[in-house]
């Protein structure tokens, strides 16, 4: 991203000063194709920076919320960054090449650029909050499948509105639109 000129009020272009961020953040889709994909509910295939073995970690009986630490505190479960990894891996399994790889990244000040597997697009306008679901004893697997059998998390439960509403109906939770959409 190179500094570029931005339009000023009087029509002339102001050159950006060194270090200034350029660009505009909008809710517009970047391309027409992306808009069509969103319309048809097609999700791009992401490649994760690292093949994270969920199965091994879950197999060692590490609870989900140990790494996804926001899950019982607020809306976002959070995708753990390298800092979280290094809490354990500073000492554990340091001989594995993958661990050495992430240790090197950490030393360079880089974080893992995880791709989101679940989550809603902006124009779903969903304000989902994990914490109350955890409090009401909804199993992680209900919405995320059995991650313990996966390496990289796979999106194998489709979070359609019907999926949410069914569960809300069964558990007599509110199905008012403003429960989730605001």
């Amino acid at each position: 991203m190179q500094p570029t000129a931005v339009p000023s009020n009087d029509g002339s272009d102001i050159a950006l000063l060194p270090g200034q961020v350029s660009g505009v953040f909008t809710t517009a889709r970047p391309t027409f194709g992306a808009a069509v994909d969103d319309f048809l509910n097609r999700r791009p295939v992401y490649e994760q920076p690292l093949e994270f073995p969920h199965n091994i970690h879950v197999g060692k009986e590490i609870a989900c919320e140990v790494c996804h630490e926001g899950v019982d505190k607020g809306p976002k479960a959070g995708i753990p960054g390298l800092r979280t990894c290094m809490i354990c891996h500073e000492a554990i399994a340091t001989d594995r090449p993958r661990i050495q790889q992430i240790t090197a990244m950490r030393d360079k000040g880089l974080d893992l650029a995880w791709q989101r597997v679940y989550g809603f697009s902006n124009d779903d306008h969903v304000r989902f909050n994990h914490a109350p679901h955890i409090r009401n004893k909804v199993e992680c697997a209900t919405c995320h499948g059995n991650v313990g059998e996966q390496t990289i998390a796979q999106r194998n439960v489709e979070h359609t509105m019907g999926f949410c509403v069914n569960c809300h109906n069964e558990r007599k939770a509110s199905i008012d639109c403003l429960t989730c959409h605001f």
Partner: protein
Amino acid sequence: MTQPSGSKINDDLLRPLFHTSWRFFLLVAVFGGIVALGLSTWMWQARNGYGITGIKWPVYWGFYITSFVFWIGISHAGTLISAILRLVNAGWRRPVTRCAEAITGFALMIGATFPIIHLGRPWLAFWLAPYPSDRLIWPNFRSPLVWDFFAINTYLTGSLLFLFLPIIPDFAVVRDKSTGLRRKIYGALAMGWRGTPKQWHRLETAMQIMAVAIIPVAVSVHTIVSFDFSMAPVPTWNTTIFGPYFVAGAIFSGIAGLLIAMALLRKFLRLEEYLLPLHFDNLGKLLLVMALLWGYFVFNERLVTYYGNEPAHMAVFWRTQSGTFAPLYWTMVTCNFVLPLILLGIRRFRTITGCVIASIGIVIGMWLERFLIIVPALGHKYLPYSFGIYRPTPPEIIIASATFGAMCLLYVLFAKTVPIISMWELKAADHLPAKHPHSTAKEQRLGDSHA
């Protein structure tokens, strides 16, 4: 002057189908170009956002909804009039019905696109249709827009059927006169018409049923369109008169549209022998009646508002009467009332030219009428702080104008592919009992005077 006989009818009316002049291509190119311009403008609007229009807070409807109501209004000429004339068995209707019904079909199609053009997110327009969704969400059946969806669809289906049924025998004629691919296409359209008495009987029965059924649908459509306005608590919208007022206005503008179309057809397709001054005279009289009716409704609507003397209503009232919108308002009154009264009320002026001039005035006037219903009221609701004035932008003007091009294009294509005058009905007239001597004399006179 007598009606042409059978073989001449075939020759005259099938000529456009079998002989293509450069004029046809020119017309298609011109109107097609206009339509393409309109479509691309709309694509641009859908891609960039609705902001390229002049719509603003608080005037959220403008040219598009005006055009929507206008075209739905135009559509009332054909089917409704044709059905009524058919039911009362008015003999002179025969050359007029098909071109009138075609107007209905095309105007409805064009009108029905406007609710989609005007949507902020047109790609979700299908949500207006009741289809079973996995979210178990249906359209809101309390919304007049959903009623519109049903009313327009019903009317469009009915009208196309009503248009199509009486073309079947004529399709058969074309089929029989053509070869190759064309024969196949027209053969399919003729749906196996052989002209057996049983088929004729069924056609007549079907037409009779359709004619009866389509009238209430037509009346309901524009009543429902008027509900778009009268259901909202906007000053001067929220009134009971809108239903009949809109229906009357629709028929009014529809007849005007029909007259213009007839005059153009007469000229371009050389149908002077079929579309007679009589038809213009009769429709002119009908137009005069509608002008008076329209005048009554407008007067009534204004009077009730004035008498009610609600401040918010009066503010809108004065804005149209003597304020910002007064020039448009008085143009409308001139076009819709003064001009028709002079041109159609005085027998000497009720010529083809007179009728067409009056009709053009009325089409303009009725477009303005819808604009004046929508825009001044929205810009002048209850709280003065939020008053605003709407001005259209070029994209809106282009799209609204392009629909006239679309109408012409569809009509040109229709006239090219279908005999624009019902051949079998004309021929059938030959076998009818002799007409009333008086009317023959009058036809004679009018025909002479205009030869």
